[in-house]
């Protein structure tokens, strides 16, 4: 999924469910686990979704096999305690390799800013497909409809924005993901950072949202929306100091207190660990 082929079946909540079952029942025979997660009397589909979900849980290093070939939980139970803990764990892991398809496609989603809004559905717009191919260098088969459908669950779950499900339109706002990267990074309450320092202090996974950001000192729409919302919620305080050496540009929004330029970010509220 993240480091292999992208599929639609391993929804985040399915992967979490399987991990929780393993943590509860391990060591457990894979077949027995399959019977729990995919109740045979209720699953009337020809194929079971068990395998792709199982494989994704393995990719996330949360489950594995013991010497007796039984399935065991290999992660930290705190990481599967809730969906938000699981999300944060995923954010800490899934963007560790920028050569992966998953990374490249998500990065492309985020750097599209508002351009895709007018193209409509991400799965049926030729324009969007063309942009993804151009930007990521992936072949058209690698961005087949199912791939994008699979990505949408995760980009939403990981906190990079919302999807209007029936229209398949992505609305970027990485408020949740940014908070995860703040928690996973070394951000401290009360500290004032320059924008550059702030970005440096985020978890490295945040790089997925910072394509060309440092070169242009410009933040994309998803990141800009996140920063503005954090500011509006009084969780951080943006500022634009006139005497600052470096000025960063948010994606323009002439309706917000900060229409574009910012220089500093102060952490107002505790970053929940």
């Amino acid at each position: 999924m993240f480091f292999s082929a992208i599929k639609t079946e391993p929804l985040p909540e399915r992967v979490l469910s399987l991990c929780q079952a393993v943590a509860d029942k391990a060591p457990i025979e894979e077949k027995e686990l399959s019977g729990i997660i995919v109740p045979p009397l209720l699953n009337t589909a020809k194929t079971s979704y068990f395998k792709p979900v199982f494989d994704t849980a393995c990719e996330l290093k949360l489950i594995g096999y013991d010497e007796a070939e039984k399935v065991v939980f290999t992660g930290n139970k705190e990481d599967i305690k809730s969906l938000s803990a699981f999300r944060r764990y995923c954010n800490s892991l899934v963007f560790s390799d920028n050569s992966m398809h998953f990374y490249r496609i998500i990065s492309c989603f985020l750097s599209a800013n508002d351009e895709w809004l007018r193209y409509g559905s991400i799965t049926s717009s030729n324009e969007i497909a063309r942009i993804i191919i151009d930007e990521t260098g992936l072949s058209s088969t690698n961005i087949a409809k199912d791939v994008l459908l699979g990505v949408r669950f995760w980009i939403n779950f990981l906190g990079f924005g919302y999807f209007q499900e029936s229209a398949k339109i992505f609305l970027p706002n990485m408020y949740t993901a940014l908070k995860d990267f703040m928690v996973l990074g070394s951000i401290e309450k009360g500290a004032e950072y320059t924008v550059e320092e702030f970005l440096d202090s985020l978890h490295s996974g945040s790089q997925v949202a910072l394509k060309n950001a440092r070169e242009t000192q410009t933040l994309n729409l998803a990141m800009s929306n996140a920063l503005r919302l954090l500011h509006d919620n009084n969780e951080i305080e943006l500022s634009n100091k006139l005497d600052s050496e470096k000025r960063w540009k948010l994606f323009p929004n002439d309706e917000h207190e900060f229409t574009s330029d910012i220089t500093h970010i102060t952490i107002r509220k505790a970053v929940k660990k």
Partner: protein
Amino acid sequence: MNTEIAKKRINQVLRVDSIDSTDSDFLATHVPLRKIAVKTQRNGSFEEVIRSEEDIYKDIFENEYAKDEHQLVIVEGSSGAGKSHFIRWIGARLAANPENRENNAIILIRRSDNTLKGTIRQLLDMKEVRELADKEAYERLVKADQVISEQKFKLTIYHSFIVEIENDTQKEVLGSMKRKKLIALLNNSLFQEKLMSAGGPIDRIYSKIISNDANSGQDIVAQFTAEDMTIDIDFFYQLRDEADKKAQEIAESLVEGDDDGSIQKITDYMNSFVETVIQSSTGIKPGDFEDIFKDIRRELGRRGKGLILLIEDITSFTGVNKALLNALIIGHTGTNSGLCRLISFVGTTSEYYRQFRDNYIDRITRQISIHDGAIGENKNDLIQFVAKYLNAVSLSSEVLDEWVRNGAYSDEMPVYEDKEHSHWDSFTLASKKKISLFPFTQNAIINLYEAMARHKTPRYIIRDIVEPALNEALSDIASFPRFCIGWRSPISEAVENRLGSIVASLELPDEAKTEYRKRLLTFIRFWTDKTLDVTNDGCISGISTRIFMELAFDEFVSKLTSTATVKKAEPAPKKLAAAEEKLTERVVAAAPKPAAVPVQPDIDPKRQKQYDDFKDNVVAWHHDGKMLIRFLDVRNSISSFVYEAINWQQEGVSLDSKHLVADSVVGKLIGFERQDQGKDKCMVIFPDNEETYKLLLCFGKWIYLGDKSWGFPNAANSVFFVTSWLERNKSRFVEAVKNAENNSLPAYMKAAMTGQVYKRILSGKMANTRLDRAGAETFLVPDVIKTEPGIGHSQEWHYLHKLLFDNEMCSAVYTSSVRYFNLIQGGMKNTDSYVLNYSLYKNAVKEMRKSGFMLDSSELDEKEDYVKSKREIFNYVQNVSSKIHKTAESEAALARTTALEVISYFDNFDIEDDVEASDIRTLIADIQEFYEKALQAGANIKHPAKEQFTRLRDSASAVASAMSVIQADYSCEADIDILLAFSANPIGKVLPFLHFLKQANADIERVGEYMLSEKRRLAEQGIWNDSSDPRFQESEDRFAMLLSAFEEVQ
């Protein structure tokens, strides 16, 4: 502004209609009217030309051919349009020329307090009138000026109408019978009270004759209206109770809604007496004015002078205006050659003019029309107009008087040099002198004028803009401006939203923020260039930052300047001079620049119109407190957005729960404060606040501008807003849809799972299952197929079975109970694939095991109750649950009866004794022996088949087991456990055995009877002894065998 002087002078200068208004104030505030429509009578028809006021003056008074002609000039226009001002300017212009003063008597009749009495007082004060020859007419006017009490005068007016009607001899308008009925109605005390109430026709007529309030009579017409004469149904019922029959009859024709034209007819009839009534109640004769003016003119004619009569408003002569006009149409030729030449200017409202125009059309020389907006057509004039008032307020009357004494030359007009407010905007006069516009800016004057709701006339500009602004600025500039909060002037949503965003970030209490935002937004939208630009010349939005500070917007300034990118100030736009620029052009020019997004789609004008219409409704809702109307499309779109954008499963909400809400509630997921319909049916109500206002507009754009897409200008701004809004409000929706805390089960799901348990129990699928260990075999299995309950259950059991299975909710309960735990992909409702939500299921099962599988109606959450599907699932299962106690009771009672009956066939057994399978088999063996012996003995009974004995013996264990169930004491058991105990139908299992026992018992009794009858027969034959007959011995043996068999089974 000189605040000390202004505080004293404001009332003097701004009360332009006051009789006390001085010439110096008038001249210091006069702005020439440039475009006046003048219709001149030529050969019986009017020709219209556009003239300036100076042109008109010259046409009339400096035209050699016209100046000695008799002239009647009508000056018409709406209330406050500037008619009086124009006429007064004519007077001042005439007076400024010594030649005019020498050759004419110039009489200016001011509007005064716009009452007849005030007008008479003006006339009496004039030298020309005091020197009149006709003393009688003069005396009558003096008498009319005497004070009588208000109530007495009003009664006089009222009764004068009755007197006039009683004496009306004309029958064309109203026949005598109708007149009598009308008089009866007028004499009714209730009706009199209605007509004499405050604001009623008598009150209005009174106020046109005499009024204590200088302003009250300005726009009042002293006439009856149809509304005055209309009777509502409640009032009619009141009248019916106490009025006489005639009054009732005419009242009926005046009832609201039943009008057949009678109301207007009666109204017109009443109005035909207004003049006469006023004259009779004031004691003035119709010819008095004619006489007085004739006397004056005769005297002036004798002296070789002309008369110039300037009447600001003819309605000042209410009651005698026809008489006055009659006096003014008399020329100075022929039989009237002794009279002087008369040039008269008569001001009248357009509405009143229409009433008399036709009768005097041939005598009117010129008709001058001053339209609304005449002053505002030229921006320069409008600003100059306000500027001159502001200047006059800052100057003492002595300074202006001296200027007038020196000829009132415009380039010498004194101007107050306002050093204190030099950073405020100003207006430069032709003399190059600058008038400070404090507390206005040029933009403010223009924008406020544009926003005026009605009467864009000088009087209302002063009353609604200049006066309140000055009063506020003089009393507390830190809370300025308040008077125009709620007024509208176009401003971009971007600026409005950004301003809201900045104010939201200020450290102020929420309530203070609302007021602060309103005042600031008002200031920005009217006073500034409508941007939030910070420029390097110390300006914000095009005006000095100091002004913002004076208005106590320090926090805003601080926040804005710390967040904005400072722009280079553009060269100041050319200040207004004499250029004739229309206001609309100005507004367009002042419109904000488009946002910095490179390519913007074009918007279809039709869509833009739809959005604008929607926005108007939302603005009226948010800013004016109106009901929210025509919002359903947008509301439904927001609801759809919420359903689709929240990933419910990721929020811990089962898609089953979300689908049930979406299908039942649909668009009503969301409601708004003061929406005009169905608010009580909405799940989550949003208040009327800035956030909701923006939300509505965002989705208005999405629907109308984007045609349900984000393809509209600045859509990225809207995306930021809607995603932020959803992030902030997501928990409210999750809570409403989830209906449960953390991982606990919502009531409807508890009901669905309980319902499945009931279905399985009543189908006999729960045998050997403990409810406290119910798991996947109960909850994660296909639905039970309905089977009729077997024989052995109570009637109540059958009833419960029917209640459960013969209901359309039966399958819905199953669907929900399994779908709830399925982790579904995307928006699908049903799927063949199943992936268990392990933790949700695990917690649910844990909770169910503890639940007791019973439902109480109070468990249904209020939010679930909103959702029809959830409510129906709950109610369906709860209804079944409520019948379980009775079913359990009946089933237990039937079991006990059955058990006792079976036990009764066993020797020395009671209900507590366990019936073992061996006991059953022994009994069966005994019975079988009985049948065999009976057969041998020749008893005439049906012998059961061997297979039956075999079957019974084989089922002995099952019967014993069932007996243990039905023998049990259930008095302390839970109802659901009793139901579960009988799930496998133990009574049904025992019944065949019981039937067998009953049959055997019956056969034994028959054999007993047979035995007795055989004995009796033998005795009767006398052969009942031991050796009488060998056949007896045979019979005796058979009997003995039968007896022993009988005794065994007995």
